[in-house]
């Protein structure tokens, strides 16, 4: 199957592994990621204000491009997922916002038809769960990660706002744990898996971010995890910068190891 793919700014620079293995693994699983032409950065953080329009247009353009290609839109970065899904929701439910956004869009060099939220957005993990299926994923595993205890770190942007993203139960998510199980490893459940890493506050108050990140990595390690898996470059940066005692890897690296297209996830 073909899907429109929105890699995002960080996957082209500091998080190349997140992108590279996402593409490689999709191939194996029979999904063709068709990168959207001339995509623009989503902005990395959704501005919830209804009167903030221009900064959301990059997401609307990507959504409209996927609609025109008659494909669902897939993201790998949890921030892109969050921003694009929230923008899509605003286009579907807020007529005033959608009218303003479409007015801007009509001024584009090559304007598309007005966009009103027609596109389905999947995070790559949702694609694995809902389209490929974790049972099929399990069958494709060549090197099961047997015996590995892995902590899923959801953070905020995969889950919240739960009603808008529809990704999983925001207080008791299971998708990454089931992903870990499909790869043959053992998920570690710990209470800080859906709490914030400190996010962009690290830029002006590294100590405050460290406090939050430490709570997450210590809580995972205390519950017996050997490794933390994430979909977010900023979560990975914050956890590593704050000195996590266990490695933090992207879920696509783990996937690639299990599918036999990457040697060893620990080596990162």
């Amino acid at each position: 199957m073909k899907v429109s793919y929105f890699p995002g700014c960080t996957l082209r620079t500091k998080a190349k592994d997140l992108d590279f293995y996402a593409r490689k693994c999709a191939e194996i699983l029979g999904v063709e990621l068709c990168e959207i032409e001339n995509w623009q950065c989503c902005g990395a953080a959704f501005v919830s204000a209804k009167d903030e329009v221009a900064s959301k247009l990059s997401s609307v353009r990507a959504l409209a491009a996927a609609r025109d290609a008659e494909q669902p839109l897939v993201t790998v970065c949890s921030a892109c997922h969050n921003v694009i899904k929230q923008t899509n929701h605003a286009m579907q439910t807020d007529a005033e916002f959608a009218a303003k956004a479409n007015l801007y869009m009509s001024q584009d060099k090559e304007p598309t038809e007005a966009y009103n939220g027609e596109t389905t957005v999947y995070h790559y993990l949702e694609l694995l769960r809902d389209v490929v299926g974790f049972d099929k994923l399990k069958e494709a595993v060549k090197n099961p990660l047997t015996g590995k205890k892995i902590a899923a770190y959801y953070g905020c942007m995969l889950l919240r706002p739960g009603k808008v993203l529809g990704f999983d139960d925001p207080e008791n998510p299971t998708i990454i744990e089931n992903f870990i199980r499909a790869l043959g490893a053992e998920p570690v459940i710990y209470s800080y898996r859906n709490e914030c890493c400190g996010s962009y506050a690290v830029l002006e108050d590294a100590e405050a971010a460290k406090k939050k990140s430490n709570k997450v990595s210590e809580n995972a390690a205390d519950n017996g995890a050997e490794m933390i898996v994430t979909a977010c470059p900023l979560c990975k940066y914050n956890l590593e910068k704050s000195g996590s005692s266990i490695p933090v890897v992207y879920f696509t690296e783990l996937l690639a190891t299990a599918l036999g297209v990457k040697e060893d996830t620990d080596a990162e």
Partner: protein
Amino acid sequence: MLNKTERQKEQILRSSGVNPLKCMRCGKCSGTCPSYDEMEYHPHQFVYMVETGDIETLMKSDSIYKCLSCFACVDRCPRGVEPAKLVEAVRLMAIRQKDANHLTPNDIPALLDDETPQQLLMSAMRKYSK
């Protein structure tokens, strides 16, 4: 004619889409806020202070830059008040003033290290500057 306080309140309510009158003052938003310790005014106080029109005080407080947009208060509020959206609206009201950006591109080079992800710079610029 609305006075300045009333105008500000109306703008905050319109921009955020929040109705602070739904709040039952349980404090769960502040209880779950990861930035509670760093904030002068906490999420439940934002709700109350917007309701009473004390917006100028919030605009001048650093608390508006401490919210991480993690949306924990939004998802965990038993009344669906969505305090983070009020914080966002107040922050925008502050930084949309002339020369009031909290972070400018000139500040960035000094804040970088070798691993800084673009996502961090993008989200900080989106939240701290207009």
